[in-house]
């Protein structure tokens, strides 16, 4: 569990575009294995497609969803912070106006 938490924490620091690119590369690797098994249906390609190909595809999609989730959260946080800043600025301006009186 510690390792998973470490990986997630590190992934959070990585830029979203990098995560999506890694996910896209994984998808292409998975697709190559799957198409190979369809064109050459012999034991090795079929086994690789059904194990490694599936693993690549699933991890790619999970990585993509994770990247989107992190991006949405960052966006929400940025919006909230900017709203709070605006509110604080408005309060300060109000105070500044009241003080001279």
């Amino acid at each position, binding site marked *: 569990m510690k390792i998973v938490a470490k990986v997630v924490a590190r992934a959070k620091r990585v830029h*979203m*575009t990098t995560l*999506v*690119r890694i*996910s*896209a590369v994984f*998808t*292409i690797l*998975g*697709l190559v294995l*799957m*198409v190979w*098994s*369809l*064109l050459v*249906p*012999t*034991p090795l390609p*079929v*086994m690789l*497609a*059904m194990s490694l*190909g*599936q693993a690549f*595809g699933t991890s*790619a*999609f999970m990585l*993509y*969803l994770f990247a*989107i989730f992190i*991006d949405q959260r960052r966006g929400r946080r940025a919006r909230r912070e900017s709203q709070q800043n605006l509110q604080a600025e408005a309060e300060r301006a109000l105070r500044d106006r009241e003080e001279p009186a």
Partner: protein
Amino acid sequence: MFSDPFKTFAIGCALLSTLLLLWFFIRKPALNRATKIVLLFGIGILPIGTAGTGNIAGYHATKETQFCGSCHVMTPYAADSTSLESTSLAARHARNGAFGHENCYACHADYGMFGTITTKIGGMRHVYEYLFHYRDTPDEEFQAEVEIRNPFRNDSCMRCHSTRNPLFNKIGDHVSTQADIRSGKTSCASEGCHGPAHPFSKEAKKRAKAVGATPQAEVKP
């Protein structure tokens, strides 16, 4: 290749997905909502389509005689069964239009509700044995040494040949041994009845015995 709709769909989805991903790599667009939706198709929806239909196509492919014969030690068995000159039990069954193209699977698949699963697990064992023990074994030596892991079960024959058919019961030997056939005591594929199914492999065993080589009884993939 394109006669199989699953295969065609799987390859089509893979091509579309690759095009979308190449567009993402080459054009390097900003990751806005539109790009995310395009990538959802490229990374999620289309590859899931490929995986789903590709697995079905792959599963069908593993039942084909061509697939079984792709390991060199199995090539003579597949070749014999598909040969029009051969009169072996396997060859006669391979000429059946209903299941001839997957005749290895039709006879060697386990019977019962979980037969497909146990057959596939057994198949994985075959792949393991082939890769780690028999990859470089000459065909003649393989045929002399290796036997079917468990005796061939009459249940496999009785899927089609019910043993209740009047035509079947016209034959005296069938009637006199019917109880033994149904219980599996007498094998349909035994020598003297309808077998052996792959006679050339038995000849290889006989030749090996004649020259004094002892078949390795413990090696039964």
